[in-house]
């Protein structure tokens, strides 16, 4: 009973995975490639290689899914996506990147380093301040007048 449930879970994960890849491939194949390529070449047209690779991607993803399902879902086990930490750390990095564009590297360092340390659970303020100060000094020395 439990094995059957696990098998169904694995198959569902495989179907969702291949469904998302399939959606991406179809989108690229029928919308992105026609809209973003033009012209003809003597060996290959410019759109041939993107088209062939995306069809191959779709084919290998589907074939892999079929093989996994035929093998009772073996190989479908996936590590769960840790979305919360990814959003937190990715968000801080993205904000740091935005600050980099708006205010420069020093502002980016002064925000990103302490924010990431706090997000990772560091609560010793001396450590946070010391790391930020050293990081800011290194950034200043590296970028100099470009700050």
């Amino acid at each position: 009973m439990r094995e059957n449930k696990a098998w169904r879970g694995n198959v569902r994960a495989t179907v969702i995975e291949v469904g998302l890849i399939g959606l991406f491939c179809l989108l690229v194949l029928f919308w992105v490639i026609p809209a973003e390529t033009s012209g003809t070449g003597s060996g290959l047209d410019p759109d041939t290689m993107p088209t062939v690779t995306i069809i191959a991607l779709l084919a290998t993803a589907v074939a892999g899914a079929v093989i996994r399902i035929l093998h009772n879902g073996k190989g479908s086990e996936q590590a769960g996506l840790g979305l919360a930490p990814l959003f937190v750390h990715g968000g801080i990095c993205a904000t740091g990147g935005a600050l980099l564009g708006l205010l420069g590297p020093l502002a980016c360092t002064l925000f990103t380093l302490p924010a990431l340390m706090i997000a990772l659970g560091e609560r010793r303020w001396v450590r946070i301040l010391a790391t930020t100060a050293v990081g800011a000094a290194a950034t200043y020395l590296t970028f100099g007048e470009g700050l």
Partner: protein
Amino acid sequence: MQDLIAGFGSAFTPNVMLFILFGIVLGYVIGVLPGLNRPVALAVAIPMSYYMDPLAAIAFLIGIAKASGTGGATTAILLNTPGELNAAVTCFDGYPLALAGRAKKALEVALYSSVTGDILGTIALIFLAGPLALVALRIGPVEMASILLLSLGFIAALAGSSLMRGLAAGMLGLFLSTVGLDIETATPRLTFGYVELLDGIPLLAITIGMLGLTEMFIQAEQLHGGLKRTGVGDEQEELRRNIDAATEDGLSGQELRQVTPTIVRSSLIGTAIGMLPGLGPSVASFASYAVAERLAKPGDCFRRGDIKGVAAAETADNAAVPASLIPLFALGLPGSVSAAILLAAFMIHGMTPGPRIFQEHGQFMYAVYASMLIASLIMLVVGRIGLVAFAKLTRVPETIVIPVVMMLCILGTYLESHSIFAVGLMLGFAILGYVMEKLGYSRITFLIGFIIGSLLEAAVRQALVITGGDVTQLIHYPLALILLGAGCVVGVVLLRSRRPPAHAIDIQEPVSGPRSK
């Protein structure tokens, strides 16, 4: 030989020597720091090399590649936490040795065997890459396309959790390599109107994002989930005890003589495995250890603290790294993650590794060889002097290491192009890399697919022009047919075997798995 002597002349300049030393020290530090490993070290260091002259830059990166692997053995021995899968083999005997109060012996044998393996692997590179490149020059586009396809398939089969997922990752890499101006008609492809994409997706943004930042996202997630050591209490005490043990008696002359045959044998195994695309340090370490264990004499105590076990793992690991550059220099084919990153570095400095590099930049290549040999010797000196000091760096908490590396990824990408667009791309690829890692799609196969994409497209175009698009013309190219046939046979065999052997699952992947600090 004259070329090599001239190469030493170019490498023996204060500028190059200084950057080799800098690379070695930095590589050691990065290798020892928790959460970091060779691919991350190289990815983060590429932007630093951007403003160096080409030889200093390549020598600097080679220094990092060599020393970060050797430094990684320190955490494997003292903490039982390998930074890369290949270092996991070092844990088998290194950690029991540390627990028995013989940490210094283990660290010393790791250092000596790393340096020896590295030198022998470099010698193989010197003697094999040039002649192989001469052979490759005679290969036409039809055969080159076959070689690239076969290699990609081979890497896909060995680098991921399954052949099909590996191939899918490789295809995605190939697809993204088509972004930019079409190589023949010069019309924009898949650029969405962004001028920044006309030259293609920046290699540096992909490399740093997929290898550096993705790895840090994974490490940060493990830290959140409590899967890593916190560095407090008993663990901190254990670490202190092991580091203290590292200051006691070192390796004796008799012990050194005992491990010499193992070191020589493992160098050969590491070199032979390293030069095959897709294999590399991980397989080399496991294979070398398995052979050493099989040839054990009465009294040897493998897996319970035998210096021969440490020697077998570390020698093969380090011999495989220079050997993995043989297909890169001879064919332009990066067979490992380190080779892929070094390829990016060569391209940033205006050179494309491949058969013609020996004709176009012959003296430069011999200077690179010379700097590799010099780096090995500097690594020995630095490692010997800083053995205990580097060991103490394992105490640096990951709440400092991870943010600093993430910061370096952002600033490093910006440093190359001074473009926020590249930083945004890097972040996007880091998230893509994270999702791929979680779903079992190999980031390495993706990266290698991306790198060889333009080569493959050029070869296929030329092949189609030569054959007039007629597949039956392939009959005139027996080598290409043999390679394609071999690829099909290997593919069928790997598919029938259901899953690759346990140790092959994460081959060349920058880590995540074994580390549990």
